[in-house]
């Protein structure tokens, strides 16, 4: 009891690492992708972002990574601006002409990190995703799951503290996905990562996250923000627990409400 009081006290004190306030995004062609989007991300947590296709999930990640800009509203990072960001795309997006090692080393090369130091960081990242022995293999020789591991290692190699992941495991089978989910939970704890995780799978969203944010489309906005108050990191047994099922049902309901609402709007 004392423990939980303490942790909630700490939770109350933690300042969000990132805040999006009243963010709107209108694309050049007039599509309103986001309207009055609000989100505060706690440090060292996993936040899942779910919502119907086209609701603006990728747009949110692009704004956060500054690949895209916002039209209205504000985005603020925690004072001190101590965030270091990495992005994992839906496809592995590897350079086919480079070996696993060179692919992972790319961000360090672009940052002109000295070779010796870079190689150390690369082998650390390779170990972290369990790709030892595949350093000199070319992407075409890798399975989909392994490619995704390379992509994650490439994101980790710069030692980021914020990780944006856009449906990274969408193209993988259930088994591989489960394994990578497990590895991701480990990594998040080992490296104190703050992760924003976009997914279409309700189960994945609940299993991974401290918090699931449900979005609706046209215009994209937050319709539900569900805290997943189960111990973290989780093990596969959690997938069959009553608590897990309850959360999945809750997310599922918000999601169908969101879908229904946008359907009603469209009609």
């Amino acid at each position, binding site marked *: 009891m004392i423990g939980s009081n303490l942790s909630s006290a700490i939770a109350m004190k933690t300042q969000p690492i990132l805040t999006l306030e009243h963010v709107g995004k209108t694309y050049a062609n007039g599509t309103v992708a986001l309207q009055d989007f609000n989100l505060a991300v706690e440090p060292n947590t996993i936040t899942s972002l779910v919502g119907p296709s086209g609701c603006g999930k990728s747009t949110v990640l692009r704004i956060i990574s500054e690949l895209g800009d916002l039209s209205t509203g504000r985005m603020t990072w925690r004072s001190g601006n101590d965030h270091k960001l990495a992005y994992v795309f839906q496809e592995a997006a590897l350079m086919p*002409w480079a070996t696993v090692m060179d692919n992972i080393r790319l961000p360090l090369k672009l940052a002109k990190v000295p070779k010796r130091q870079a190689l150390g960081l690369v082998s650390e990242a390779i170990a972290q995703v369990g790709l030892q022995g595949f350093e000199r*293999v*070319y992407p075409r020789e890798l399975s989909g799951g392994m490619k995704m591991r390379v992509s994650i290692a490439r994101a980790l190699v710069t030692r980021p503290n914020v990780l944006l992941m856009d449906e990274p495991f969408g193209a993988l089978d259930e088994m591989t996905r489960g394994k990578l989910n497990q590895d991701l939970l480990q990594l998040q704890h080992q490296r104190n990562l703050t992760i924003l995780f976009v997914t279409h799978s309700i189960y994945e969203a609940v299993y991974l996250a401290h918090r699931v944010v449900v979005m609706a489309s046209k215009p994209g906005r937050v319709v539900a923000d569900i805290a997943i108050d189960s111990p973290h990191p989780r093990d596969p047994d959690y997938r069959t627990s009553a608590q897990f099922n309850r959360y999945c049902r809750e997310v599922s309901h918000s999601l169908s409400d969101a879908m229904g609402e946008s359907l009603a709007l469209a009609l």
Partner: protein
Amino acid sequence: MLSTTLEQPTATPKWVKSLLSPDVLAPIIVGLVLLTAWELAVRITNTPPYLLPGPILILQTLAKDWPTLIPSWFVTMKIAFTALVAATVSGLFVAILFAQSKWIERSFFPYAVLLQTTPIVAVAPLIIIWLKNNTFAALVVCAWIVAFFPIVSNTVLGLNSTDPSLVNLFKLNKANRWQTLWYLRLPTSLPYFLAGLRISGGLALIGAVVAEFVAGTGGAQSGLAYQILIAGYNLQIPRMFAALLLITVSGIAIFAALSALSNVLLKNWHSSAMKHEN
């Protein structure tokens, strides 16, 4: 390791097997059949050699006239090779320049097309007059004009074919223009460039021969086209064919060499050079 393949349990060396593959065997058989038909047709119809020599006579002439033909072959190859190197260097340079901005490409690409659409036979006399003190340079320029465009257009296409996710990755890692060019755009364009190079290799040879024809019989160094012209005047038709054979074989050799180069450079990653295992 993944990259090691299982050794075949046979003792046949790899190159023997590749010679015996249908890819090599089938065209050889077709060729032999056609040549035999040609030889037979010439003999049966009693066609005089000054109209159409048979393949055996052509080969005999080639062997007999080897000492005159080989120096000429060397001259033509030197022109074609110099032009190809010039086209590669200038083509890459121009392609990279075009890829720097859409505006440069838009403004100048039509002029690159102009080089391609200008019939070389028509401009060759002009170039030869302008560079009359240096026939070799004039012939190289003609061959270069023909070989230049495929390299430029293919490389430009390649430089602009970057994977959008990789472009974003480079942006996120704050890559500068040169890093993006060197680590992303140039590697992406390599297969395209090599495809262009293969086309240009053959074109450089054709350009060289055409330019030699236009230059005619003048000039101190004389290439294979000169030999064909002279043989034509003297009605030495078998020698004409022998010279033609040399040109054709050289063209095939250039293509094969550039294909081999392409396969070596792309073997690890590009589907055009990969063995597919399913």
